[in-house]
């Protein structure tokens, strides 16, 4: 620590840090444009000039390292004169029409100009105009307003990992623009809107909607991945109008993914379910909540409870529910004596499931020196986790993958190991064997016959030599024939090499479901058994079979049986749901309910509702509470969801016991299909968000396979496979079809 003097006050600083970091920490305002705390320093705008005693000329605070005894003046005549001069230059070519600019009222240039600019422009020549291209569905460009701070350029290069914006031309003709005609494509692109200090890059869906001061800004939590990024939901007259990022260095730093930023658009889709409805003699009727809930409870009573058929009742929930909702549904079911509870809708074989704990925090991820990725396209599935890994690679970390397809990473991979699904377990077994041999440990029987190939030896050596490593298991393994074996091998490899593990085979709020134990109780049935049994009743929480189940037909058949009474809680209309349900209760979607998300750091992040749900829509926790009351269940006296959470805290956290079996004898031959909903169609609100669907990621819809697999399946490049267009590429492993399915709902319906 050293001491420096700023405006006559002595402050402490770290030797070598930049002056602006000290003034920011001390709350001393220094104007800036090019400087951004998470981007490299270029010192190109000169707005931050301050007077440093002893220096002949004013110095840029953003790139002047502090020294012991340094004396700085941020507000004296010399400093002010230079700030004023720079401001005048910056405004030469900048339009002075803030009233018609979308950034007006939240513009750094406007703020700084008010403070440092002159009242009257001395510049009477004509200003330059920059024609704009269309740069995509999410970002509106208005490049006449650009002040060439290059924050967006550096954001692309340094954070998004793909340089999309650049400065073309020179001098008076310098323009910031993307090269590709398809426009901006990064999954983090919306952050450019936040970093742009002026109105050059603004949110396209929000264009000309409102002024920032007209909206309420409420802190909230993103719900589409395992990170739970912190954000602000900005609302006006009870509608979500925009989402921007909030700072939280332990979670999302200052970035959010496009998925989290733009999903709110789905909330106003015309497909929203707005009123409770009941099906009477095959006809849907819109009814009041009272009628609907009475009908639901009566149905449950007459179909299930009255006949002591509670073992023929099932409760299922999708991963989007809040922790409180998982808990309440489970509580209702257990209190009526039903043990059939599950959320693992897309797992084919529930005797072969992944059980793997995550034991590394996001912040630690960027400090690892080696990562092994098994079956994940992290960049698109968990963008903020990928961002941390990318930061690690920038500090020299090596990353290897065992993936079924060569995905488009935005960081270097040491070795790409494109591995057939049925070769992943054997390869990992080879890794474990190699490690145990190096450690001169006694080999368990199941490893004796395992062959150790070069790939396995390499990975083993890297794990053994690394100081801090992590093994990441992704969602492509969920339905692998060897899923549990793979997870157990990873656990053992990690134990033997002191590695951390990260389980990305789950997403959204699945961590909460596991925490409250939303799984079969005692000897209750799991989801697949329920679907195969003769059930008389279901309570389904936010489920859309078409997208959520690995096997649509079986699910729909189970729900559609004549004497099966189905209560569905959904946010969006869905024909299939309407087909089998007896009651549909409209529930709140993201930002419309209070609740809790458990993220990969094990942070329990609670949020309140930013807007009231539209029309008759109610938060699911309330619906479940009232249903419990109507069922005459005793202990459901909650005034708000926080009381539910408080009760959850008093429950013992569910501990999972799992077998540690490694079974390498599975003789799976033939082609494995890995089906994945494309990143912008993983949940209902996303499937209804307009702008996201127009992006390149939103349009992803391909069944990838190599030539050999295509021949085996008798397919060619013009065909469709399971309804998805075939793409033949040698980047896919043998014996594997990797499907990225676009499940978007017609997005013309935004209201």
């Amino acid at each position, binding site marked *: 620590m050293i001491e420096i003097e700023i405006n006559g006050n002595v402050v402490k600083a770290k030797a070598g840090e930049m002056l602006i970091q000290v003034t920011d920490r001390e709350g001393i305002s220094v104007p800036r444009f090019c400087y951004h705390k998470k981007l490299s320093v270029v010192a190109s705008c000169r707005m931050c000039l301050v007077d440093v005693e002893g220096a002949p000329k004013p110095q840029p605070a953003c790139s002047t390292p502090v020294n012991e005894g340094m004396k700085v003046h941020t507000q004296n005549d010399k400093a002010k004169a230079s700030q004023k001069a720079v401001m005048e230059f910056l405004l030469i070519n900048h339009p002075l029409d803030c009233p018609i600019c979308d950034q007006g009222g939240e513009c750094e240039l406007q703020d700084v100009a008010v403070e440092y600019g002159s009242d009257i422009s001395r510049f009477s020549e004509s200003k330059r105009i920059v024609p704009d291209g269309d740069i995509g569905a999410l970002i509106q460009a208005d490049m006449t307003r650009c002040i060439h701070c290059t924050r967006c350029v550096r954001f692309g*290069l340094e954070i998004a990992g793909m*340089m999309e914006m*650049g*400065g*073309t031309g*020179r001098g008076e003709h310098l323009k910031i623009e993307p*090269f*590709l005609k398809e426009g901006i494509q990064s999954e983090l692109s919306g952050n450019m809107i936040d970093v742009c200090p002026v109105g050059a890059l603004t949110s396209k869906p929000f264009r000309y909607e409102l002024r920032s001061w007209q909206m309420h800004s409420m802190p909230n939590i993103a719900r589409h991945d395992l990170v739970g990024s912190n954000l602000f939901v900005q609302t006006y007259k009870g509608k979500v109008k925009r989402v921007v990022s909030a700072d939280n260095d332990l979670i999302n730093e200052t970035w959010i993914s496009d998925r989290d930023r733009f999903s709110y658009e789905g909330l106003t889709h015309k497909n929203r379910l707005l009123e409770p409805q009941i099906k009477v003699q095959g006809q849907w009727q819109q009814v009041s909540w009272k009628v609907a809930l009475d009908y639901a409870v009566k149905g449950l009573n007459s179909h299930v409870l009255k006949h002591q058929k509670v073992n023929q009742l099932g409760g299922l929930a999708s991963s989007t529910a809040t922790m409180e909702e998982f808990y309440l549904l489970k509580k209702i079911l257990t209190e009526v004596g039903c043990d059939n509870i599950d959320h693992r809708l897309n797992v084919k074989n529930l005797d072969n499931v992944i059980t793997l704990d995550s034991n590394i925090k996001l912040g630690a991820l960027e400090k690892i020196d080696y990562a092994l990725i098994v079956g994940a396209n992290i960049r698109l599935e968990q963008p903020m986790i990928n961002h941390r890994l990318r930061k690690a690679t920038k500090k020299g970390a090596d990353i290897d993958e065992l993936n079924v397809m060569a995905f488009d990473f935005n960081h270097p991979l040491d070795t790409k190991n494109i591995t057939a699904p049925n070769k992943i377990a054997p390869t990992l077994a080879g890794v474990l064997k190699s490690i145990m041999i190096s450690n001169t440990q006694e080999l368990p029987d199941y490893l004796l016959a395992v062959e150790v190939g070069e790939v396995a030896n390499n990975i083993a050596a890297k794990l053994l030599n690394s100081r801090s490593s992590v093994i990441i298991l992704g969602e492509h393994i969920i339905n692998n024939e060897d899923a549990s074996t793979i997870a157990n091998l990873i656990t053992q490899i990690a134990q033997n090499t002191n590695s951390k593990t990260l389980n990305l085979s789950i997403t959204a709020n699945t961590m909460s479901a596991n925490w409250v134990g939303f799984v079969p109780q005692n000897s209750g049935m799991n989801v697949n058994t329920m679907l195969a049994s003769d059930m008389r009743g279901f309570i389904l929480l936010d489920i859309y079979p078409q997208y959520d189940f690995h096997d649509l037909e079986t699910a729909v058949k189970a729900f559609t049986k004549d004497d099966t009474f189905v209560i569905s809680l959904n946010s969006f209309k869905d024909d299939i749901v309407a087909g089998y349900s007896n009651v549909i209760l409209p529930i709140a979607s993201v930002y419309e309910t209070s609740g809790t998300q458990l993220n990969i750091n094990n942070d329990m992040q609670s949020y309140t509702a930013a807007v009231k749900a539209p029309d008759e829509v109610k938060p699911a926790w309330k619906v479940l509470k009232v249903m419990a009351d109507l069922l005459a269940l005793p202990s459901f006296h909650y005034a708000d969801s926080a009381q539910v959470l408080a009760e959850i805290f008093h429950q013992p956290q569910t501990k999972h016991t799992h077998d540690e079996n490694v079974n390498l004898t599975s003789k799976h031959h033939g082609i494995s299909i890995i089906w994945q909903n494309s990143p912008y169609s993983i949940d209902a609100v996303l499937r209804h968000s307009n702008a996201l669907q127009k992006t390149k990621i939103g349009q992803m819809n391909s069944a990838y396979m190599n030539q050999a697999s295509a021949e085996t399946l008798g397919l060619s490049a013009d065909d469709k496979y399971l309804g998805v267009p075939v793409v033949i590429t040698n980047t896919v492993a043998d014996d594997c079809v990797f499907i990225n399915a676009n499940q978007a709902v017609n997005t013309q319906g935004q209201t």
Partner: protein
Amino acid sequence: MISIDAKKQIDAWILKYPKDRQSSAVMQALKIVQAENKNRLSADTIQAVADYLDMPGIAVQEVATFYENYNHKKVGKHVIRFCHNISCMLNGADDLILHLENKLGVKTGEVTPDGLISAKKVECLGACVGAPMFQINDEYFENLTADKIDQIVDNLK
């Protein structure tokens, strides 16, 4: 998009830089690729250079639009680069550029109908002592006057 011959030439330049710094050869690569594509660069050729040097397309575009020696529009067989920076401007470059435009019958930035000549305005070519000046292909012509320009242009075949 890039011929084998051009690749060989680019490779020779790449070798002059440290390993993994092949992007340093970008200016030469653009020049080589431009030469074999009718003396101009298109989005496709720029992307091809980017791919070859493992750079983002926009990074190559930045270089290609920064320097006047890269052409993005159709050019003539002979390219006249007329300096209009300070020294040349003070010595009457603006009037001479007008004269040249009249003589050619096309504006700077355009190509004569026979495809023989195109002219463009460029920044200082480092020949201020001989201002006003222009460059035709690789040759400098200094201390220009209207007559001298007529004579030089008439001699272009």
